[in-house]
C-alpha cells in the first residue's frame, strides 16, 4: 500500500504527469491491487466531491475577477490609492501594495493580480527610477496577498477539506493580509528613503475626491462581497454570484470597457480555468478518502503524539513541511492532500482550525513566489517581460518579510482570530 500511496504519486509527480492523473493513478492502483473495495467508489467520490454548493464560489469569484481584470477597474483603483498615498517615500511602491490588497478583495487568484496590477505599476516604477530587481521582487511577492485577503479560493478549498466555515476563514484572513501589506509598505518606504527615490505628487484632497469619484464603482465590489458575507446577508457562494453580476454591470454598463461578447468570452476562460482546478479537487478527494480508510491520518497523529511535541513545536514542524510542499506543488493540490492528514494532528494539539487555515494559506502564498517554481515568478516573467535572475534576486527581501509575518501569524493566533470576533460578532 505504501507503494500506491507514497512511492507512485511522488514518482509520477516528478515525471511531470498532470496532478489529477497522479492522484487518479495512485488511487486506482491501490483499489485494484491492494484493497478489496468495489471500484464504484471511484465514481462516487469523483462526483460527490464536486457536488457541493460552497465550491460554486470558486468559478464565481474567478469570473468576477476575470471581468474586473479586463476593464479599467485596476487603473481606477491605482488612481485612488495613489491619490490617497500622497507624498510618502516610495509612493509608487506603496501604491502597488495598496492596489494589490484592494484587488485581492475583488479577485481570488494571485496570478491575475500580478498580471493586472503589474502591467500598470512595473512600467511606472521603471520610469520613476526604481531598481528593476526591486520592482520585480515587489510585484511578484505582493500578488500573494491576494489569497490571504478574502475572497480567497484556497480558503474555500481548505474550508471544504477541513469542514470549517468559509465566512470564519474569510474573517480571519483580513488582519493577516493587512499585516503583510503594512510590512511590505513599510519596507518600500524604508527602501525608497535609503535609495533616494522620491515621491510622485503631494497629497491633494481634491485629486483624491476626483479619483474616488471615478473609482467608486470599482471600490464598491469589495464592499458588496465582504460586507454581504460579514453582514450575514449572503453566503460566500451567493456573494460570489452577486460579485459576477456587479462586475458585468460595472465593466459593461457603467464604464463601457468591454462589449457584451467579451462577457461570454470571460465566462469561457473562467470555465476552463475552473475545470483545471475542480478536476484536481475531484481526484484529490478520492486520494484523501483512501488515506482515511487506510487510517494514515490516525497513524500520523499517533506518531506525532509519541514524539510528545509541544503545540508550538508542532506548528514549527508543520510550517516547514508546508513551506517545502508549497515550493513544489500548487496551493490547492497541497491543501486537498495535506488537510485531511494535518487536521487530526492540529486538533489533537488543541490548535484552532480556523487559525491553522490561515497559517496554511500564508505558507502556500509564500510558495506562489518562492523560487524555483512559484507561479507568480512565471507570470511576472511572461506577462511583464522580467528576467528570471532579476526576479530571483528581487524576491529575497520580500521572502524574509513574509517569513517574519508567518512567524507572527503562527504564534499570535489573535492576529487571525480577532478578525472572527470583530467581523462575525453577530
Amino acid at each position, binding site marked *: 500500500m505504501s507503494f500506491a500511496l507514497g512511492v507512485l504519486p511522488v514518482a509520477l*509527480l516528478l515525471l511531470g504527469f498532470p496532478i489529477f492523473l497522479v492522484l487518479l493513478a495512485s488511487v486506482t492502483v491501490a483499489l485494484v491491487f491492494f484493497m478489496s473495495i468495489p471500484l464504484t467508489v471511484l*465514481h462516487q467520490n469523483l*462526483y460527490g466531491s464536486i457536488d457541493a454548493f460552497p465550491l460554486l464560489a470558486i468559478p464565481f469569484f474567478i469570473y468576477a475577477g476575470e471581468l474586473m481584470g479586463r476593464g479599467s477597474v485596476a487603473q481606477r483603483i491605482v488612481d485612488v490609492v495613489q491619490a490617497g498615498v500622497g507624498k510618502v517615500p516610495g509612493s509608487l511602491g506603496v501604491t502597488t501594495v495598496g492596489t494589490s490588497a484592494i484587488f485581492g478583495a475583488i479577485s481570488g487568484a494571485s496570478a491575475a493580480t500580478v498580471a493586472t496590477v503589474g502591467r500598470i505599476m512595473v512600467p511606472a516604477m521603471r520610469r520613476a527610477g526604481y531598481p528593476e530587481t526591486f520592482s520585480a521582487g515587489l510585484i511578484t511577492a505582493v500578488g500573494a496577498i491576494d489569497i490571504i485577503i478574502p475572497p480567497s479560493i484556497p480558503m474555500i478549498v481548505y474550508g471544504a477539506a477541513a469542514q470549517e466555515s468559509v465566512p470564519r476563514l474569510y474573517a480571519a484572513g483580513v488582519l493577516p493580509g493587512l499585516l503583510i501589506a503594512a510590512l511590505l509598505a513599510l519596507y518600500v518606504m524604508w527602501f525608497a528613503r535609503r535609495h533616494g527615490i522620491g515621491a510622485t505628487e503631494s497629497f491633494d484632497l481634491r485629486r483624491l475626491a476626483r479619483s474616488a469619484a471615478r473609482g467608486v464603482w470599482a471600490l464598491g465590489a469589495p464592499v458588496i462581497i465582504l460586507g454581504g458575507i460579514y453582514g450575514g446577508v449572503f453566503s460566500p457562494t451567493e456573494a460570489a454570484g452577486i460579485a*459576477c453580476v456587479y462586475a458585468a454591470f460595472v465593466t459593461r454598463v457603467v464604464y463601457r470597457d468591454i462589449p457584451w461578447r467579451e462577457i461570454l468570452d470571460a*465566462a469561457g476562460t473562467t470555465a476552463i480555468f475552473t*475545470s483545471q482546478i475542480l478536476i484536481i479537487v475531484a481526484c484529490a478527494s478520492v486520494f484523501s478518502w483512501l488515506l482515511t480508510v487506510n487510517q494514515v491520518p490516525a497513524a500520523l497523529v499517533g506518531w506525532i503524539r509519541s514524539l510528545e511535541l509541544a503545540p508550538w513545536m508542532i506548528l514549527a514542524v508543520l510550517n516547514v513541511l508546508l513551506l517545502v510542499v508549497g515550493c513544489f506543488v500548487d496551493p490547492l493540490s497541497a491543501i486537498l492532500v495535506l488537510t485531511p492528514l494535518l487536521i487530526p494532528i492540529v486538533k489533537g494539539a488543541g490548535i484552532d482550525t480556523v487559525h491553522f487555515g490561515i497559517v496554511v494559506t500564508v505558507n502556500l502564498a509564500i510558495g506562489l513566489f518562492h523560487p524555483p517554481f512559484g507561479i507568480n515568478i512565471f507570470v511576472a516573467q511572461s506577462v511583464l517581460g522580467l528576467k528570471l535572475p532579476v526576479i530571483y534576486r528581487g524576491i529575497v527581501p520580500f521572502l524574509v518579510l513574509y517569513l517574519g509575518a508567518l512567524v507572527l501569524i503562527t504564534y499570535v493566533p489573535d492576529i487571525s482570530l480577532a478578525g472572527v470576533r470583530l467581523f462575525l460578532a453577530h
Partner: protein
Amino acid sequence: MIDRFIERLTRWIEIALAAALVIAVILNFASVVGRYVFGVAVVGSDEVQIFLMVWIAFLGAAVVTWREQHLRMDVLVGFFPNPVQKAVRAGEAIALFVLACVVVWQSAGFVRQMMAVDRRSDAAGMPMAVPHAAVTVGFLLIALIALRRLRR
C-alpha cells in the same frame, strides 16, 4: 482532419460551458433577488447550479486535456534528454487512456443504475443520471483524446 474536428469540438464545448456558467450566475442572482425582494425561493436553483458546475468540471477537463493545460510540475522533466521526454509523454498518454477507460466503465454503470431506478434530485426533480453522466462523458472524451495522442 481528426485534430481539426477535436479542435472545433473543444471550442463548442467551451462556448457551452461559458453559457452554463452564465446561467448559474443568473440563477444565483435570481435566488438572492427572489429571497430579499419578492420573499420567495427559486425552488431547485441551488441544485441546478451545482449540476452545471459538475458539467463544467468534467467536460471542461476534456478541453484542458486537449489543450495540454493541466496543472503539473514539469520543470524536472525539462532536464531529461529528448528520447526520455518522449517516452515519459507516451507513458503518460497510456496511463491517461487506461485510467479514463476505468472511470468511464465504472461511471457508465452508475449512470445506468440511476436511470433504472429513475432517481431524481430532491428540489428540482431532475433525473440524477444527468449530472452523474458528466463524469462518464468527460472521461470518455479524455480517453479518446489520449488515444489520439497515442496514435500520433
